[in-house]
């Protein structure tokens, strides 16, 4: 019985789950076995020392962060196109390399423009 590529994916997914859940489970087990349960107002406080936190922890982000998010997304999408190019590189023609070069140059131009505009400088 052949599972094909699905077997690898299942193994990877299971490994990812175990990697995330195992520390949580171990920490829970450790706390259950070794730490006595004595909750109190001091132990349940957010900070064990210092001043009490006054309002809620909710703060609105500055909209400058959003710009960094967008630029990150753009170069993320660029990477998506780089991977098939790299994988199929041996079988590609010179024109394909030229097309990729134009692709990268256009995006590099955008980055250089944003840099020149002072967008990348953090204030």
């Amino acid at each position, binding site marked *: 019985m052949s599972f094909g590529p699905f077997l690898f994916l299942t193994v990877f997914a299971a490994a990812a789950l175990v990697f995330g859940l195992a520390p949580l489970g171990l920490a829970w087990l450790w706390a259950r076995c070794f730490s006595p349960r004595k909750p109190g107002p001091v132990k349940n406080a957010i900070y064990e020392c210092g001043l009490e936190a006054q309002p809620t922890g909710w703060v609105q982000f500055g909209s400058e962060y959003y710009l960094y998010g967008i630029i990150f997304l753009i170069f993320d999408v660029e990477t998506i196109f780089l*991977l098939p190019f790299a994988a199929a590189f041996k079988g590609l023609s010179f024109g394909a390399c030229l097309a990729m070069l134009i692709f990268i140059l256009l995006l590099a131009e955008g980055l250089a423009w944003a840099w020149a505009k*002072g967008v990348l400088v953090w204030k």
Partner: protein
Amino acid sequence: MEPVFFYIFAGLTLLCGGLVIANPFTRNPVTSAMFLFLTILSMSGLFVLLHAFFLAAVQVLVYAGAVMVLFVFVIMLLDLKEEERRRMKLAAVVLGAVATGVIALAMIGAMRHSRVGLGLESNVAEGSTIALGKNLFANFALPFELVSLLLLVAMIGAVLLSKKDLR
């Protein structure tokens, strides 16, 4: 075995997608964003079942990774408490239902005239990354270049729209 997984992933996609827009337990936008994340994840499962492994990985990396970060950013820019207090308006619900119905009718009409799943295996020939790269540069070179232009325009637009005093 594959149909079982298809129904599991399709059901998960629909369920989580429904919970994105109408969660009966909470009106917290962050919860909606997390359910959108689950929707995208189960959609990548559907891509895996189609043997489109590259697309599945891209779905997780770009949509679940980068686009979701942007969504959460936008949610953080909003006033969350006010969003939770907002009531649903009847006119908006009716209008949304009508729009959804029209789109569903158009989709059904389009799908009835298309031959789903026929001739797909022969020309896609495994959704491997190498086949995708060859196909992209052999047949879709112009759209590929247009994508770079589109990304450039997106970057310029984002820079110009963000209210910063540009030099």
